[in-house]
């Protein structure tokens, strides 16, 4: 049995990598990927918690989030494709037309 601490640490590391990806990457596609990593970090935390406490709720949460992530990716990728068709780039620094 692996200690829960390792799982928590892995989850935090994955989440941080995701955050770093969202903030640092300029390609919209990679930002989406980083978001998925963050989601998965959270999901990992849920499962670790569930097995630690012997409570199945966390695993049900995992299924829910999985569905959510799938639909999110579907919509997000659709938007990204649309964005690429319109602007011929996925660089978020150039996609700043919503400047106030």
């Amino acid at each position, binding site marked *: 049995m692996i200690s829960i601490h390792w799982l928590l640490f892995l989850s935090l590391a994955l989440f941080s990598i995701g*955050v770093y990806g*969202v*903030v*640092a990457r*300029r390609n919209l596609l990679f*930002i989406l990927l980083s978001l998925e990593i963050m989601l998965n970090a959270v999901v990992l935390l849920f499962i670790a918690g569930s097995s630690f406490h012997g409570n199945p709720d966390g695993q049900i949460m995992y299924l829910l989030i999985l569905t959510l992530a799938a639909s999110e990716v579907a919509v997000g990728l659709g938007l990204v494709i649309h964005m690429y068709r319109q602007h011929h780039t996925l660089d*978020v*620094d150039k*996609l*700043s*037309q*919503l*400047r*106030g």
Partner: protein
Amino acid sequence: MLTNFLSYGVDMQIPDSLLMLIPLLPFVSSLILIFVNPPKKIVTLLGVGSVGCAALIALLFNISLWGQTDYVIKAGFGNWMTIDKLVINFDFYLDALSLVMISIITGVGFFIHLYSTGFMDEDTDYRRYFAYLNMFVSAMLVLVLADNMLLLYLGWEGVGLCSYLLIGFWYKNRDNNMAANKAFLMTRIGDTGMAIGLFLLFYQLGTLNIQDMQTQAVAVWAPGSDLQGNSMATLCCLLLLAGAVGKSAQLPLQNWLPDAMAGPTPVSALIHAATMVTAGVYLIARNTQLFQLSPDAMFVVALVGTCTLLLAATAAMVQNDVKRILAYSTISQIGYMFLALGVGAGSVAVFHLMTHAFFKALLFLSAGALIYSVHHEHNIFKMGGLLKKLPVVAASFAVGCAALASLPFTSGFFSKESILEKIVDSGHTELWWAAVIGAFITAFYSGRLFFVVFLGKMQQEPNHTPTKTMHIALLVLIVPSIFAWMQPQGLIALMPGLPSKGLSDLQHWLPIFTPIAALMLAFGLYRANFFGSELKSPALQSIHQLLKSGWGFDFIYHHLFVLPFKWLCHINRNDIIDLFYRRLEDTARLMHGFVTGFQNGRLRSYSASLVLFCVLAISWVVLK
């Protein structure tokens, strides 16, 4: 029936309502001329005819009231406004004083109108000229006939407006506009004082009806009552005096009048003789009882008159421009009237006003004919030797100058003698001496003016001869300028003077010989070619310069009021008060810029700030 007719015929009762026609006729004619553009003959007929009819009606009143001393005729259009206690009627009031005034205004005014048809014949704005002129006469008639102070004030302001329009009549020249502005603004200063005086009078006496005011004032501010009432009477009188000083061009508001010469010459005649400048004298004469309640105010009136008459007479001695000489002489003669009013001789003041109206109108009209004849030349030293060429003008000028100099057996002699006599009666010997010196200077500059213009070598040939109507007006005005010897009887009854003290021999004979001596001196100096020659000593030159600028009042006012005002305008051109609001605006703009910096449209900075906030928030919760 027949007896009835006869008794009417002898008395010649004329309906009171005719009185309303006097101001109304010129007013209606002026309105027609403003709004309709009739052919030139009709313009002449309307412009001259309306004032002529008014003059006829005034003449009828004169005949019907001949020999009577105590009469009052009232007529009116009814109520003008009623606000609580303040009831103002559009009523006219005719007594001896206003009868004299309307006779002067319509009579002299008519001949000035007649003369203008010749003088302005070639002007393109003929119609506008007569519209203004009629309005001017009408406003002045309202002023002198008004039954209450508010209606008087209406006429007063109407006169101010029309004088502004007429002084700036040739509006394409910037100087004329400046002169018109100056006249308007200077008189406005006095008018403001007068308006405050009217408010105060209403507040104190509860009425603005002139006759009620007099009786009320005597009751409220009775002589010998408490000191406070007395000083209030003085204050009211001084405020009214401010208005009179402005309108009548007396010290310290006198310097608009010489500049008012910018208008056409008949307008100057009208301003100086019949309308406008006599309004101040009328105002004080009308409120005689009020002024008599305040000896201090009376003394101020006399003092203002004395200072003005000396100042203007000395300034008139050195002018080159024929119209400016006459302008200063007007200021000086009105100074005499104020002096007479100040020593409590209102009737004599109005007598002098009357004779002055005749001879000053004559002088101005003949000066106009003179200027008209010699290529619009104003400088008297470029004229000369015109006696033979322009005999009628020369004769009328001579009569005018003689009356102005108060040579014996002219109208000016009798009125000025009466003024001097009344000053002696009042006991102000120092003012008497000042007035005699003034008379000497007056005769001196009249002589100088006449000799330089009409005697000697001819400088330039006259190219126009005055038209027939101009000659008629001049010839008619010569008659009253010489023969207006008698003071209207009604005036004495209305404004009884002080009891006569009797004159010493010196006081009797000196004023008679003063003008003769002055004229002889002027003639001697003229023969010695003194006038117009260069002055040798620099001190004399600077005195000459000072006198020529009218004692430098323009200079003083320019530095005392105009320049500080301009300076204030200059420093305030950026709106000092707005500076505060500008700072507010700048602050708001700065903060706005700071906040909008966050909304930069960059996804990464949004997410970064989100992360930052989350980290901060969580660490704050955790570490607390």
